[in-house]
């Protein structure tokens, strides 16, 4: 845990067919830092996020999480693909929250949270349940433990999904547009939970369209467009005084 950077991306490139979606992204995230990724759709921000926990493989460059090369093993100057089991092990230290929640419909809120601790981390069931209840309490849903996802609102489902992602004590949390699928009045509760998490010192990378959240919760904001990092800086600088035309045009269109 002595690594200064939780995430270190160097020259990351990614193609979908003949379409280059990431054109050499270099980006580092320090421990405890909250980074917001902004950018128009198709800018590659979600793809980059998915590359960090190797849900997408990369075609060039390197991504290190806690100093460990993601998805590959380097021996000499050759790089070898890891086995699915080894990649799964690497992912345990990275929590991810999805735009469409992706809770398992056949499990209650609590079961969704305890599945990985019990089945993967081999935690005793009672301990996992107690910790699961504590997590539900943290996201304000202790009374919904035995409800199924279909019985919860979108905002409640997303908060359960955040609790689920926290269940294995990750050192990094990835958020992929966590409020984009929610009704406007439900966005606030989810952002509150994320704000608390940021204040507790969690390292977070958040792909979002919530400019307000970026302004108050982010330590640094990165603006991406066309597969490159156009501009980055503290929220006050980037949001109030953007240096690039593309950043300016984007901010004008969303505000």
């Amino acid at each position, binding site marked *: 845990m002595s690594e200064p950077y939780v995430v270190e991306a160097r020259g990351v490139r990614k193609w979908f067919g003949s379409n280059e979606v990431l054109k050499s992204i270099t980006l580092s995230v320090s421990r405890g830092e909250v980074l917001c990724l902004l950018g128009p759709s198709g800018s590659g921000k979600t793809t980059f996020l998915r590359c960090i*926990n190797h*849900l997408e493989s990369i075609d060039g460059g390197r991504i290190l999480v806690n100093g460990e090369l993601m998805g590959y093993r380097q021996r000499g100057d050759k790089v070898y693909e890891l086995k*699915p*089991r080894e990649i*799964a*092990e690497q*992912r*345990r230290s*990275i*929590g*991810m929250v*999805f735009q*469409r929640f*992706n*809770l*398992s*419909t*056949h*499990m*209650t809120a609590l079961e969704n949270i305890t*599945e*990985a601790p019990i*089945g*993967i*981390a081999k935690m005793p069931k009672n301990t996992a349940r107690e910790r699961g209840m504590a997590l539900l309490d943290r996201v304000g849903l202790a009374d919904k433990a035995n409800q*199924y*996802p*279909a*019985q919860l609102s979108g905002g409640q489902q997303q908060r359960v*999904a955040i609790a*689920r*992602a926290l*269940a*294995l004590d990750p050192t990094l949390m*990835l958020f992929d547009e966590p409020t984009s699928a929610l009704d406007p009045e439900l966005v606030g509760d989810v952002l509150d939970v994320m704000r608390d998490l940021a204040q507790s010192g969690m390292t977070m990378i958040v792909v979002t369209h919530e400019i307000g959240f970026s302004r108050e919760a982010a330590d640094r904001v990165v603006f991406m467009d066309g597969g490159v990092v156009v501009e980055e800086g503290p929220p006050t600088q980037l949001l109030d005084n953007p240096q690039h035309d593309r950043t300016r045009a984007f901010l004008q269109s969303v505000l």
Partner: protein
Amino acid sequence: MASTTRTVASDDDVVAIPLRHPGRWIAAAAIVVVLGLLFTSLWRNPNVDHPSITEFLFDPRILKGVWLTIVITAVSMVVGTILAVTLAIMRMSSNPVLRAVAFGYTWFFRGTPLLVQIVFWGYLGLLYQQISLGVPLTDIQFFSADTNDLIPALVGGVIALSLNEGAYAAEIVRAGLLSIDHGQREAAYSLGMGPGYTMRRIVLPQAMKVIIPPRGNETISMLKSTSLLAVVAVAELYTAATQTSSQNLRQVELLIVASIWYLAMTTALSIPQYYLERYYGRGTARELPPTPWQQFRGWTGRMSGRWQNRQIARAAAREAVDE
């Protein structure tokens, strides 16, 4: 859902006599008459000897056939299902060898008649007199047995039904797996679950809700397909019935006996299917679907509620006329 019993509360409530449907009553009456005539003509038919139907319905030979039919169906469905899940996962694998094998299997066993497959297994002894286990191209042999001893007709029949069932059910399982949103897998992977664990704990349980209804269909179909084992002389229900009738020449009566048993068994099958669907449907609806008893209670409640409403409406209409 509670019953819809309510009383007319305020003046602006709609107080209307419900729309009558005389056509429905006429159609229902006509159908009852036609069915009645059909059954009387069958019942009065002098060629049907009723006492022998009741006599043979619980004949020990028939009951043994019923039991064997149930056993063959159960074993073939279990083996077929295991095969099907394996084949479906192979078919969706990224490994091209597994994909090709699964495709070839389905192609072959769906493309040839079940009857032919059953007879083939019955005649396996003609193809291979001995079945041996040993090291190929050497004289080392661990085990050797006569094919007809190792695979009697019953085992051959069950193998044929299982292999055939596996091919059909594989497509059902595959449809179920395809119905699960890819986000479910991604969420599982992001939690550090491997592909096998994700399939077992996350994807398959959710796919069951899609898989169960057509599997019920398949079970009913299997129950009836067991009668094809008559061609290899397995004493299941149909064979038992025809063997009995070949002695007493009551062919029609024994076919009726067999049909009654087949109908009884397929009817009984709908009960476990209902509860399986209810179990795997948990979490998808806001409330669990009612059990048949709850449904019946709900129906009687609604009926009495409707009747009460009608009484109230009539009374109100009468009052209106009086005024």
